[in-house]
């Protein structure tokens, strides 16, 4: 009424800089670790990895087996391969199940930037997880050499580390893609574990029964194609298997998922 507030009836944000991407990434990284679910998941991953290596060590020493560094890598990979993708799924779906999406997308309405920040944050977790796994596996290998008196075999640890980094980036990204595709924690997790652990059985049966499926399988079964990566023996055509099957199980769900997030109603 009294024209004191002239010029204040609009809120001028044209000079306000947008939220920098680095801040979005650091916020998303924090979200992975500062809730009870996220923190416990990270702690469980480290704890279960340690436990697996201790059991493996007990078996190896008790039986006088001869092992290499890559054997310990495969041991520590078991819990990592199961739990890292779950982290990837939850990083997307918790926004919807905990209903924080409203806040997140209000503060940064450009949803693609949030999705990109989330994706970068899980890609940051991959080398961290790898570092923990590598240190534990290396300690295990040194300890094994010291106790058993066998020669410690390291193989080519640099190459192994790079291949495992790729493996963890792929598994985190797969979880992320399924999370984006379903936008629902149980659905994303169930689909992931069914694909990883259950589907291998019918696939194996089908490959035994049908020759054409046996030759097709590495090209379409992402899990199967990751096998040579875990053995660190991957070469030549096996890279092609990884790419084509990854296209089916990682890129396609990710694209559909991102399209879904852009359009989904935020409740």
């Amino acid at each position, binding site marked *: 009424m009294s024209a004191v507030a002239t010029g204040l009836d609009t809120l001028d944000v044209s000079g306000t800089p947008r939220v920098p991407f680095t801040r979005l990434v650091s916020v998303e990284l924090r979200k992975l670790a500062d809730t009870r679910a996220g923190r416990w998941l990270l702690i469980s991953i480290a704890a279960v990895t340690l436990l697996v290596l201790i059991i493996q060590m007990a078996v190896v020493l008790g039986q006088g087996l001869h092992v290499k560094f890559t054997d310990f890598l495969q041991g520590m990979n078991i819990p990592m391969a199961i739990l890292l993708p779950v982290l990837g799924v939850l990083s997307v779906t918790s926004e919807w199940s905990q209903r924080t999406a409203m806040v997140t997308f209000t503060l940064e309405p450009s949803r693609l930037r949030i999705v990109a920040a989330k994706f970068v944050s899980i890609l940051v977790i991959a080398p961290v997880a790898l570092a923990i796994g590598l240190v534990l596996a290396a300690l295990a290998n040194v300890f094994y050499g010291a106790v058993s008196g066998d020669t410690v075999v390291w193989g080519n640890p640099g190459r192994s580390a790079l291949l495992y980094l790729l493996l963890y980036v792929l598994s985190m990204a797969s979880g992320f893609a399924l999370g984006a595709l379903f936008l629902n924690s149980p659905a994303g*997790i*169930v689909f992931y574990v069914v694909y990883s652990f259950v589907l291998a059985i019918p696939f194996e049966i089908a490959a035994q029964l049908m020759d054409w499926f046996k030759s097709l399988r590495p090209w379409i079964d992402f899990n199967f194609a990751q096998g040579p990566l875990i053995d660190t023996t991957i070469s030549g055509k096996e890279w092609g298997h990884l790419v084509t099957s990854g296209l089916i199980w990682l890129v396609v769900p990710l694209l559909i998922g991102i399209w879904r997030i852009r359009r989904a109603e935020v409740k």
Partner: protein
Amino acid sequence: MTSAGLPVTFDVTDTPGIPFTRLFKVELRKAFDTRAGRWLVGVTAGIALVADLIIAIVLAAKDENLAYGDLVAGAAFVCSVLLPVLGIMLVTSEWSQRTAMTTFSLEPRRMRIVMAKMLAGVALTAFVIAFALVVGVLCNLLYVAFGGSLDWTFGWSGFFAFIATQTMAMLGGFALACLLLNTPAAIVVFFVYKWVLPGLFAIGAALMAWFNDLVDWIDFQSAQNRLFDGGLTSTEWGQLVVSGVIWLVVPLVIGLWRIQRAEVK
């Protein structure tokens, strides 16, 4: 002040308790009248159907023999993957969707709710078993239509083993859900226990003689699978009971205790 004669206490002594049958019906309805539940039941049935169709068509095309029992086993395999998830969500969705407050206000005796939920899970298992039997019939006829020879061999011991393993799969999920009261955690632990652990057990048994002796007593999955071969020896029954106590009874008891005491938020 002037409320002359108005009752100041709320007399519910004559109000009957909620009958257990009603609790059971409500819990059964909760299992599939939400989107998550309906999709889960629908997807389970759909994938079982597709799996059997593929088996029937492929085996007919390959001129391989196929009996009714094989088809039921195929459908059962699919159901045994997803049924436990239903068992898990029956319990955990009360906490994740925050309906526990309503549920436990209307029936404060929590154990009755849990029992009703468990029975609802068993009822759904029965439904899925019936569904698998029907799908098996259809696909067996389809197999004949594609040029296979009709074989209704079924095997009653296999059928009882089927019922037992499905029910225990559902109850296994239920027990883990009670223990963890968290959907993602229960699902992950259940799948690890069901699909990853047997492989690790096998490796351990192959490597260590003492573990080889022990593993039969702690591997619930293998103990159940022996039911399919029929005619369990008394040792095998013992192994089933011991491993069942470890994987089913202990988590369930701790879980029930937890539900009894958990804060409802």
